């Protein structure tokens, strides 16, 4: 064969095609195989807008982007090395992200006049034919024809045969990256257990794709991407929403409580419900309420009854829950509120990512109503941080808001999953007896300022709680002015006091006293990490700290910030964390924002850092 092999550090591939083309499955298979091979991976599926559009149109394009390589992959990649397109619309949507000189694998059958028209190419224009793709390596393959011919004796109808198209592409890409087919073969055999004919067809086409690479003269280069030096251990792939679901179940198990998840479907949070509802054998109860208000109220009711009450939604649904969250904080019952943020305001961009609910999380309730707020920074970190949210809620008898976002919720990465035994237990003790002489005082506090959790069913602890201001210690209704002030301050102090029970803030990369500190939070972690790696490699004095505890902040945050000359706060919103930091510390932190429903690209961040360094070059030099 006349092909060479080239070694690459990392590769970004986008599989794109119509919603019906099996793109997500293809992407997932390539991910699994590549993970098994030992590469690190970061993936991001890109669904079409909410309603499926007619086949072949731009609105109907489904994409799956993945980035794999021989080092830690922090993001699904900014620019594409390889773009696999099943039809013209898929090319149209994604071409702008392809690197100069990148590879296009195009299914020519998807570029027939009908598809070109659906993709709204001008009459007579075929991008494969008109020279517009100059500067890219284009592999044109009539996937449909190859698939059909591979299956000509299979006895399958045309429609059913055509459904295996994606296997041809997968096989071809496996060949291109020197991958082994075993994992996918196993998967196919498992998935179609009951249809041996389908198994056979898919395997045939998969091999045909692989062999096409091997035998076709067209392709000159194969690539080798060596395994990444990942910490030793057992791995699996995990998506953010899945990790959130597992984190909740784990927290319930480690606290010895039953998990109650009250929710109302909403993109991009619904998958947490779908995931949790499978695990009834963990005693998990999922409750699809009539609306978000009912969902959070049911979670409060469950918590009153001694369960781990959790509610989940996205921005518009969280807005509806605010009144009830206020009740929960007055009742001082544990409650975890999961907010998988999406593009806003209002219905906004439901399938896109954004970080614009931070101020709502911290400030968005009537009255003085502090709750704890934490955020996950990567898909797998959803597991850790939602577990933390549960721990804080239970230890401090308080609502805790857990922020995720559409990007990490749907993104995936390899996860060195923990053993159940290695997870810290969350100690929960229900009140068993009277706590002040012969009386039970529902608002007598412990050293964390948490009140006792007395659940119905225990004789002698009968008590009433409610949303009207409560008298200190007794919990009775009180309109007393001084008591109100005391209670407001106590609730605030309880949340502030959490700072003593969370880890100190660390610097992720860079020096302790860099010229520029990038302070990020939540789902932008990967992009910031990449950018800072590159900037450090360029010899610049930058550092990166990433917040996962947002209210309260880690105790050392101020001193950590003050050691750096300039603070830049990149956020996928119009500047929210930056407001809190400036208010709290009177530090002239600057804001870098992107409000496009998209994650940061490395270049977005690097350019901002260059700009700061340039602007302040004098100050920095004379230092």
């Amino acid at each position, binding site marked *: 064969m006349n092909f060479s092999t080239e070694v690459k550090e990392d590769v970004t591939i986008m599989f794109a095609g119509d919603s019906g083309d099996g793109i997500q499955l293809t992407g997932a298979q390539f991910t699994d195989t590549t*993970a*098994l091979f*030992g590469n690190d991976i970061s993936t991001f599926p890109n669904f079409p807008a909410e309603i499926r559009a007619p086949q072949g149109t731009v609105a109907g394009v489904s994409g799956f982007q993945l980035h794999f390589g021989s080092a830690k992959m922090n993001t699904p990649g900014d620019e594409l090395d390889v773009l696999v397109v099943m039809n013209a619309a898929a090319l149209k949507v994604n071409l702008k992200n392809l690197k100069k000189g990148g590879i296009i694998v195009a299914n020519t059958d998807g570029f027939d006049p009908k598809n070109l028209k659906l993709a709204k190419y001008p009459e007579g224009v075929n991008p494969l034919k008109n020279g517009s793709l100059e500067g890219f390596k284009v592999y044109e393959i009539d996937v449909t024809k190859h698939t059909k011919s591979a299956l000509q004796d299979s006895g399958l109808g045309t429609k059913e045969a055509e459904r295996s198209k994606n296997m041809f592409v997968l096989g071809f890409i496996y060949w291109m990256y020197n991958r082994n087919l075993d*994992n996918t073969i196993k998967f196919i055999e498992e998935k179609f257990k009951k249809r041996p004919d389908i198994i056979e067809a898919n395997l045939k086409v998969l091999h045909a794709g692989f062999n096409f690479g091997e035998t076709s003269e067209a392709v000159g280069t194969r690539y080798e991407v060596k395994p990444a030096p990942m910490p*030793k*251990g*057992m*791995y*699996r*792939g*995990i998506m953010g929403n899945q990790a959130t679901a*597992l984190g909740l*179940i*784990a927290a319930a198990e480690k606290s010895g409580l*039953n998990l*109650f998840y*009250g929710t109302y479907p909403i993109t991009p949070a619904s998958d947490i419900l779908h995931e949790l509802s499978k*695990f*009834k*054998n963990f*005693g*998990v*109860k999922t*409750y699809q*309420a*009539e*609306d978000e*208000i*009912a969902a959070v*109220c*049911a979670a*409060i*009711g*469950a918590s*009153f*009854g*001694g*369960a781990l*009450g959790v509610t989940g939604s996205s921005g518009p649904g969280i807005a509806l829950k605010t*009144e*009830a969250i206020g*009740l929960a904080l007055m*009742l001082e019952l544990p409650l975890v509120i999961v907010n998988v943020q999406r593009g806003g305001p209002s219905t906004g961009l439901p399938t896109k990512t954004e970080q614009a609910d931070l101020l709502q999380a911290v400030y968005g309730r009537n009255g003085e109503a502090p709750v704890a707020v934490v955020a996950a920074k990567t898909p797998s970190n959803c597991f850790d941080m939602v577990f933390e949210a549960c721990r804080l809620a239970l230890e401090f008898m308080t609502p805790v808001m857990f922020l995720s976002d559409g990007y990490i919720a749907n993104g995936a990465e390899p996860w060195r*999953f923990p*053993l*159940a035994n290695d997870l810290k237990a969350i100690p929960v003790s229900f009140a068993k007896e009277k706590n002040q002489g012969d009386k039970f005082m529902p608002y007598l506090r412990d050293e964390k300022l948490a009140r006792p959790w007395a659940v*119905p*069913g*225990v*004789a*002698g*602890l*009968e*008590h*009433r*709680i*409610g*949303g*009207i201001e409560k008298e200190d210690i007794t919990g009775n*209704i009180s309109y007393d002015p001084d008591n109100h002030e005391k209670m407001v301050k106590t609730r605030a102090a309880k949340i502030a006091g959490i700072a003593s029970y969370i880890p100190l803030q660390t610097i992720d990369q860079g020096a302790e006293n860099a010229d520029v500190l990038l302070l990020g939070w939540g789902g932008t972690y990967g992009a910031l990490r990449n950018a800072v790696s590159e900037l450090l490699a360029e010899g610049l004095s930058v550092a990166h700290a990433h917040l996962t505890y947002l209210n309260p902040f880690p105790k050392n945050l101020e001193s950590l910030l003050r050691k750096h000359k300039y603070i830049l706060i990149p956020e996928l919103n119009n500047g929210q964390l930056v407001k809190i930091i400036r208010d709290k510390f009177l530090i002239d932190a600057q804001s870098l924002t992107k409000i496009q429903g998209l994650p940061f690209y490395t270049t977005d961040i690097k350019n901002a850092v260059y700009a700061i360094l340039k602007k302040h070059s004098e100050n920095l030099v004379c230092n």
Partner: protein
Amino acid sequence: MSTDINNFTAKDLITDQEVRWCPGCGDYSILKQVQTVLPELGLKREDIVFISGIGCSSRFPYYMETYGMHSIHGRATAIASGLKSVRNDLSVWIITGDGDSLSIGGNHFIHLLRRNFNVNILLFNNEIYGLTKGQYSPTTQTGQVTKSSPYGALDHAFNPAALCLGADASFVARSMDRDPLHLRQMLKRTHEHQGAAVLEIYQNCNVFNDGAFEVFTEKTTKKGNTLFVTHGEPLIFGESNNKGIVLEGTTPRVVDLENTSTNDLWIHDEQDRNKANILVRMFDNPSDDSLPRPFGVFYSENRPCYEDLMIEQVEEVTNKFGKGNLDALLRGKSVYEIK
């Protein structure tokens, strides 16, 4: 009901909180009857939970020495649904007003009925917003002058019992603050029902809507205007029990018992939803004001309770897949090792 469970009396249900309803408010009587009935139900006091929304009536839990939550406006039903989902062992009583349940809380109310959680809903209907000082509610009569309708309310009032039936309630009954005996009977029936039981209680707000139910509660007019229904019994009412109701096709008519035998009367059947629908609509037709207003259990149906279905499903799934193992869950289906 074993006696060792009856470890409390009505007195034990009184809390140390001063009762703060207006003097003369119908809520007092309801509180009293609930405190009287509860010890007779074979419950442990610590297993009883009162959950309310916001309103005069919703202060109720503070006066019951049981577990209780005074929540937010309209949401008691939603909170109780969550509580029941995880604690089917508790006896949960929801206290709500006509505004709390039918106005802001209308959605949770009908959904709870549909799902059929096993709870007792005491709907204190005073046809007014008491706590906020006298605005019209979804049960206020059209044309009534209130704080927010100085020229008369335009709204068409809900028929609460009809709404409940429309929402597939499995138990619907009505009583009134001024008839302690009947109220106690109805409270017991409400408790006994397995499923979501709604007991609408006509309650006089003597400050903002005094006398709204006078014709049903005052001695002089009561007998002629009320109809107490009992399962298996004919529909009879009137000053001297001299009138009855017959069903002509689907139309109820008042008859004089001098001319009609009680055998021909409509015999109340709690299990007949179609008849229940006619019964609760009897007084809706303003052109026929001879029909009395019914009280009693209108409808009662056996249907699985939601919390039991939840438990069953958890058990089924557990039987099928075995009790969940956290390590297996964390591993997932496809793992690989980096060595």
